[in-house]
């Protein structure tokens, strides 16, 4: 019996290791290639993007996990020779950080109201929120554009920040977290004479910390990777975020694309590593209580 269990365990470990490898493989390739010299990349990936789809079947990419010669050339190109990359990096930062802060504040307050306050029309309002969330971005694109135009926000970062701040996802996620908190906590607070703000700050916020972590990570991933919004709302190439830069790297600059990808995903990976325990905790919490 125990043999069967240990066998099962080994098999599972093997399966997981294989799966992990499949998931990690592109990341590893990206990091390795970012440290390879431009010539070597051009040589290895000669058949990539050559445009002849027929040839792709006969030619193989010379995939190497250890470069012939380690080179920081790509990073130097990105960080020293093209200020555009850094500009776009900071553009991304200055778009994503306000959205995360704003949406966290707004969504936490809104979800408190929608989960813990009793008032008429609470459920219909939440339904409307849900509806906007369920609709794909492309559907709301035209109205969003028209509103941004009327408000004079076009070609300005606020055209991206404000819709981000008031997006429905945070409300939905945090409401789900808050629904797990028994009403008794709030009543206890009320009995001790606390108002709604105090209850929110002192009781609710500490309790949904994992929820915040999850929200921050999810929002970061979402907005760090956005492409359509900046493309549509921002004409000025100097205002556009890093995600656009990556999508516009030419075929000839394959090496730069690898280095740019590494720098692009670094904040995300670091953020995930940092908040991973909170995220897991949050998921666990919601799981246990649910």
């Amino acid at each position, binding site marked *: 019996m125990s043999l069967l269990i240990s066998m099962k365990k080994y098999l599972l470990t093997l399966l997981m290791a294989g799966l992990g490898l499949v998931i990690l493989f592109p990341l590893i390739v990206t990091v390795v290639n970012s440290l390879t010299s431009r010539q070597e990349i051009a040589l290895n990936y000669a058949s990539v993007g050559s445009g002849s789809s027929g040839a792709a079947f006969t030619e193989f990419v010379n995939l190497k996990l250890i470069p012939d010669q380690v080179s920081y050339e790509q990073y130097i190109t990105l*960080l*020293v*020779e093209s*200020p*555009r990359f*850094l*500009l776009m*990096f*900071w553009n991304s930062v200055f778009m994503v950080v306000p959205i995360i802060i704003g949406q966290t504040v707004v969504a936490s307050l809104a979800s408190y109201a929608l989960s813990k306050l009793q008032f008429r029309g609470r459920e219909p309002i939440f339904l409307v929120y849900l509806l906007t969330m369920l609709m794909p971005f492309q559907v709301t694109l035209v109205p969003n554009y028209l509103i941004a135009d009327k408000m004079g926000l076009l070609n300005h970062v606020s055209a991206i920040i404000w819709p981000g701040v008031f997006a429905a996802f945070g409300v939905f996620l945090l409401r789900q977290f808050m629904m797990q908190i028994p009403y008794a906590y709030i009543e206890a607070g009320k009995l001790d004479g606390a108002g709604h703000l105090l209850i929110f700050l002192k009781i609710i916020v500490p309790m949904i910390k994992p929820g915040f972590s999850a929200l921050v990570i999810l929002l970061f991933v979402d907005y760090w990777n956005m492409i359509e919004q900046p493309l549509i709302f921002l004409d000025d190439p*100097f205002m556009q975020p890093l995600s656009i830069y990556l999508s516009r790297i030419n075929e000839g600059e394959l090496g730069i694309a690898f280095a740019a990808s590494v*720098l692009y995903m*670094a*904040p995300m990976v*670091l*953020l995930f*590593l*940092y908040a991973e*325990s909170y995220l897991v905790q949050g998921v666990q919490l919601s799981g246990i209580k649910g």
Partner: protein
Amino acid sequence: MKSQEEETNLGRQRFVRILFIVFILTLILFTLFSNTLQSLTLPKVRTDRIAEGALTHKLEAQAMLEPLVEVELMNPSEWEVQEVLVEEGQRVSKGQPLVSYNDDAAQREIQDQMKETSEFDLRVRSLQREHETGELNLKSMQEQFIQANHEGEDEQIRRVAREMETQKLRLREIQEQMETSIQEEGQRKERIQRDIQTHTLDLDMQERKIEALNEKIAHSSEIKAPFDGHITRVYVQGNTYASGQPDLVIADYSEGFKMEVPVDAALASSLELAQGQQLQVEIIDKVQQVRSVEGEITHISKAAILSGESDSGPMAVQQKHLTIKVKVDELEGGEQGTIKLEKRSRHQGLVLPNQAIHQASESRFIYKVIEARGPLGNRFVAQKVQLKILETDGEISVVHSDLLYPGDQVIMESSEPLQDGNRIRLQ
């Protein structure tokens, strides 16, 4: 167990936090200093601002002044030089003897001829004498005959024809003799007269010869100055005589001086030079004094093709020669004359040094500096601008381009070959 897990978790969090901060700080560092770092590696360029204007065609040339009228005096009879009477640079007046020649040979010839003449003369005279004697002979014969006749008559009377027969015989004899003599004498006389005539002709010829020789001596024993002027060159030295070379060169300064200046045909036409045009000539004389005098272009030669080498390989230049006449006193020839001509071109446009203009097959272009307002400070970028050259001299061109304006910065030199859109570092 739980706390240990939390502890490793915290440790990892701290590590990730430090990593994150390092990452962000690195990016901030590069953001602030990448421009500075990069500008150290950019090609360095030297620029100049372009201005509106026109090309000024300039001709500055120096040439030696030579006398306008210069005559080469040749040795007239190729005789040995006896003495050179003048020096180079000496002023001479008309008729002044310049070189004397040794005429001994001619004199000897005259003497020979004279001797021959006198011989002829003597011969004529003797012939005449002979002629005269002949006449006298004849006369005496006639007298003899008359006498004989007379004698005969007297004897007839006195000696009664005693010797009449003999006398008659003698008379007949004498008469016959006389007839032959007269005949002979006539022939002789004719011959002598012919001889005299021939000799007289010879004599005349001889005399003419002598006369010619005398004339030659008078003419060739020295060279005289044909006009008031200066001796500019003396070729003869001592007694040596070089065939085919003049002995002296004499110049007439009063007619003025000339200088010959080579000019590029293109420049000549740009300057619109014409025959008869007046211009200023600066003359540096022998005592290094500069003065400015009026000159006149008297002749412009037809363009001649002059082939030479340039940086870009062999090239042919069309060249003309200007002859400029300067009339001024107190010159000696050999002074340096300088002409300076300037003419503003009629083509108005942007003036650029040729150094800045590049050529690619047919088209010409320059690199202009554009100040791009970058996100991280201003950047200077080289922009390629096509242009048309309206006019050019060796160094500067007048160009036209819709994309160039006065005051634009144009790249003259760069430390590395440039391409359109290259970032550059201004010097």
